[in-house]
């Protein structure tokens, strides 16, 4: 197992280098001169040129990229063009908010998705099952940026129950977490349902039934633990999706997380921030995937045996 984790960690290195290359190339070919943006439309060209030199924008691509990569290797992500502060500090200070939002929404997604999935699987073909399947499909079809607007309109504006911006107090957590959590809840519900159905068809469940075990005992003692294994994978994947979803949601709800910072950074061509932010998000995403895979391997002996 240790070897497996180590190998996976090593495999992340080329992927992350690839990420820096892709993002660096993208920012390099992007229209928009950061120096000119900082200096404004009136600044004379000599001053902008001086600024460009200062920011190291005049060097050829290879030089810039190599400089960046070697700095990153020393954990130096550069300084933001706009604020002059280290990119690492800027991002880390916003990271907890984004993680908090992501965690809140994954909890909501699990709390809604798993029980509903179990219920609809055990009552397959019932009215409830049909309704749940329908609602589940709807959940993955509603664009979350639209849902956010509708939730703001209903709960913030019409009813006045909940604040519609910020992320400091528990009442402020509700709307943003729900608006990104709902689609994941639907996906988790669908996964739980199909995985539960699969398990319920297994021989050992039939045996238990034949032996006259009560339905609820069968479900909770025998079926559930096995049915939840594939659900874990989906939950892991959804954490990545939610991390992405947080980016739009932070913008709609004025939440000071990484997402809003990144969208602003792209708009103002703050290259070091874009590069550093994407790299850290990619790292988080890869780590979450690794953790999920490890847990998955741990709970499923068939898979665990492969990694010995």
């Amino acid at each position, binding site marked *: 197992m240790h070897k497996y984790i180590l190998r996976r960690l090593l495999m992340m290195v080329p992927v992350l280098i690839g990420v820096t290359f892709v993002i660096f190339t993208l920012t390099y070919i*992007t*229209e*928009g*001169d*950061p*120096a*000119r*943006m*900082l*200096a*404004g*439309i*009136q*600044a*004379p*060209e000599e*001053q*902008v040129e001086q*600024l460009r030199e*200062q920011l190291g924008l005049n060097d050829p691509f290879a030089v810039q990229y190599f400089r960046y990569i070697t700095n990153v290797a020393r954990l130096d992500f550069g300084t933001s063009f*706009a*604020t*002059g*502060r280290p990119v690492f500090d*800027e991002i880390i*200070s*916003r990271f*907890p*908010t984004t*993680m*908090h939002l992501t*965690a809140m929404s*994954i*909890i909501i997604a*699990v709390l809604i998705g798993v029980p509903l999935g179990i219920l609809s699987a055990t009552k397959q073909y019932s009215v409830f099952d049909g309704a749940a399947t329908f609602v589940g499909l709807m959940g993955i079809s509603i664009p979350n940026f639209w849902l956010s607007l509708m939730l703001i309109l209903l709960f*913030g504006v019409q009813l006045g129950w909940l*604040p*519609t*911006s*910020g*992320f*400091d*107090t528990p*009442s*402020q957590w509700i709307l943003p977490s729900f608006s990104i959590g709902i689609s994941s809840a639907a996906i988790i519900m669908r996964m739980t349902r199909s995985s539960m159905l699969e398990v319920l068809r297994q021989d050992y469940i039939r045996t238990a039934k034949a032996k006259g075990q009560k339905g609820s005992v069968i479900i909770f003692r025998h079926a559930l*633990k096995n049915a939840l294994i594939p659900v874990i994978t989906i*939950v892991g994947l959804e954490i990545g999706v939610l991390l992405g979803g947080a980016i739009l949601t932070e*913008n*709609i*709800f*004025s939440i*000071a997380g990484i997402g*809003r*910072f990144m969208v602003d950074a*792209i*708009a*103002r061509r703050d290259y070091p921030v874009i590069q550093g932010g994407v790299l850290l998000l990619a790292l988080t995403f890869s780590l979450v995937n690794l953790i999920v895979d490890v*847990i998955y391997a*741990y*709970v499923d002996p068939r898979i665990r045996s492969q990694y010995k």
Partner: protein
Amino acid sequence: MKKRLIATLMLFAMIAALVAACAQDDSAANGGAGANGGDAVPAVDDHLIVVARGLAVNMHPHEALDMNSAYLLNLVFDPLFRLNYATMEIEYALAESSEMSEDATSLNITLRPGVTFHNGDPVNAEVVRDSLYHTMNSPLVGFLISMVDNIEVNDELNLTINLAAPFAPIRRHLTHSGTAIIHPDTTNDNPIGTGAFIQESIVLDDRVELVANENWWGENAGINRITWRAMPEGTARLIEIETGGAHIAWDVNPSDLPRIEAHDNLNVHRSSSIETHFMAFQCEKAPFNDIRVRHAIAYALDIPLLSYTAYEGTGSPADSFLTPVVVYHHSIAPRAQNLDRARELMAEAGFADGFSTTLEFNSENQIYAQLAVMIASMLREINIDAEILQFEWGAYLDRVLAGEHELMLLSWNTITGDADYGLFDTHHSSGFPFGGNQSFYSNPATDALLEEGRSTLDSARRAEIYRLVQEQAFEAANILNIHHDERLHAAVASVRGFGVNPTGIIDLWNVFFG
């Protein structure tokens, strides 16, 4: 079997722990900010909460040029002069008196005595000189006082600014936050000024906490603490003060005005502005190098309708490149819409069947999207097919400075309140491609007038000069002025003394609760 169940439960426990940890980090990040959420206005009467578009990009006054920074820098730093928000006349700030030489080439300044920085260090002529030199060397704001040749320190409180060439409006340039006086140790993280408020803490992109400067030389009407929160959406800002989360919503959408006016506990604070929104032609490019085409387009547009619809009846249709509050503004009514005349001119220019072009603007301005859609629709009447292109600011600047644009929407802020700042860079042939003359307008007669305008102190002569320049610009139609902006802010009823400056700056030390 049991093991697996435990593992599954562990996952949930982990997530829960993560949440708890994050929640803790979160409050830690807020630190001394006092983490007052959006739920209730604090009971303390002298604590003002403002929601605005954003925070300062940089709290070093010489390293920022955007409006969000200007608002906050004005509270923490003092320049030598300020503009009176009602009259747009020059007032003294750190300077106590000043005298301009007859030939407009040097300015003597006497400083206000006994002024200290937030850290207690005194302000003297030497510090002021070094601060101004620092401004001059800044790639960002250096252009504001690039006409300065050298600065002489005469004694503790007296200095002389010598100019390289006559420059009449120098004092107005010294009102800009980019020329504000800094302590030599000032950095973005540690702004040390002389201003009415001291920055206590900052949560990036979220909020800034300011406390009143007890030793300020000016008069603070009674705000002890300001929390300045960033909220990019206009609608969100309004909801925030409606629901009691803040006292002042800085900039509200014109479309929300009726709602604010109907609200018992909210007041609208409106003020004329120094910002004009306009459409510029790239006059070096065919077919816009043909004055008949420019005139045809001018006749095709219904300027009052554009202004009224897009800005919901706020502000006014533009009658000049300068807004009425700018000194030496000269009103010339826009050409009335006349489609027959427009088609005639198009035919004369050889474009009876029209042509295709692009209409570009910065995607951050939602109202420009509305203007563009209406303009494109009006241009269709004279067979011009204008493709609308929104660019992010960076890409947009690139295109505009490279002269790749054809029609574009932009605005100009005459921050110093003087015609020279409004017209020189935008209408003098030295202003392109860099400098602000994005229509690539070039007219030797205008150039000569603009040069004379900045070197003469005689205000009657200056009025005459800038009247002529505005008439020439109207005739050339290199720019079609569309709308004079209006500053719109909303505040809860208990906020008093809230005076809006046409530049957008608000002197929050005048505010008190009543």
